């Protein structure tokens, strides 16, 4: 049992190493956003002819627009505009494309926002969920692996500590403090007015 869990801890750590480092380094930039104030994004706007078929549903139209205008990024859920048109968004870390399609589906207004490195890393950190293209599905799978690994590191780490040490008083104290504090904070958020 010990060998299996030690290898699980080790190999899981090596496989998700860069992903975990990326999340904690970019997370640090996010919690200290005031230290790394982002620069204003560069905005470029343009018009394009579209002539999209009228019988497409919103999701199909979003795919068509992305393909027709050659826009990279993850497809985000479409928004219906009051005049009957559609707004689509395609996002990759550092760049967002917003496309407003007229109600007759003949024209598109494209807005491209290019962000600085702070926002690029911020968006990389916040990228989640399945769908929007094969690349983003792969990202979703890796993110699931990272999430599972966090739980695996905690559980196997406690087991490995228990097996590797004889004097355990300090360890029990740290463990109890950690869990008591987390559960206490959850209780505070649950019961506080």
């Amino acid at each position, binding site marked *: 049992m010990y060998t299996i869990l030690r290898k699980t801890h080790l190999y899981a750590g090596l496989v998700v190493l*860069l992903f975990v480092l990326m999340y904690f380094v970019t997370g640090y930039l996010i919690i200290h956003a005031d230290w790394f104030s982002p620069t204003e994004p560069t905005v470029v706007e343009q018009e394009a002819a579209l002539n999209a078929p009228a019988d497409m549903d919103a999701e199909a139209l979003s795919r068509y627009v992305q393909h027709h205008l050659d826009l990279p990024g993850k497809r985000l859920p479409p928004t219906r505009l009051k005049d009957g048109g559609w707004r689509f968004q395609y996002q990759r870390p550092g760049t967002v494309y917003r496309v407003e399609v007229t109600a007759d589906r003949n024209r598109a207004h494209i807005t491209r926002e290019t962000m600085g490195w702070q926002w690029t890393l911020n968006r990389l950190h916040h990228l989640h969920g399945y769908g929007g293209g094969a690349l983003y599905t*792969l990202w979703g799978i890796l993110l699931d692996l990272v*999430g599972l690994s966090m739980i695996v590191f905690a559980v196997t780490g406690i087991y490995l*500590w228990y097996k590797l040490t004889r004097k355990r008083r300090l360890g029990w104290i740290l463990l109890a*403090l*950690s869990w008591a504090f987390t559960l206490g904070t959850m209780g505070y958020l649950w019961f506080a*007015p």
Partner: protein
Amino acid sequence: MKQPFRRQSDLRSWILQLHLYGGLICSSYLVIYGISTLDFNHPNALTRGNRATVTWDRALTLSDAGDDARLAEQVRDALGLFGWPLSWTMRRDDDNNFHFDLARPGKRYVVRVALGENRVYVEEERQRLWSIIRGLHGLGNDVPGSRFLIAWGLFTEVTTWIVIFSALSGVYLWTFRRKERRVGAALTLGALGITLALFLYLILHG
């Protein structure tokens, strides 16, 4: 004077102890990170929504300086609540009411301040446990109105550094495991290559 191999062994032992005990300190936060990450990646009806909505009101005398953000903070503090007043929900209506939402992990308040009556009407949405777990994910020490959560912000800071240290020290400790060196190297290099290629591809061509 200590011999070189002894010094290396001492260093390894110290790093192992820090790796082990640091891991114990942040073990509960790692579980929070793990569950919340899976929840972010798989949003579903079970983890969203409210467990209950309660309405209440209270008499309150306020000095309306005309600044909506400042007024919302005054109301929050006077009611003994904490959280972020959401700027995009702030509005005034023709009946001299000021509306805003206040959010924090676990709860959201829809607030109507009846300025003419000196009364506040609150719709309190008590969210599910999942909302608290998501809310604790990377929560800093900037939750307005709560001194207690400053401690959680410190925990976030400590956990971040421990995880970065643990990731790097884990690689260091692995290099002493002769039997697992080959498999580990193959896994590490493979995973590093794929992950780095994915990051770059996503940012440059995604």
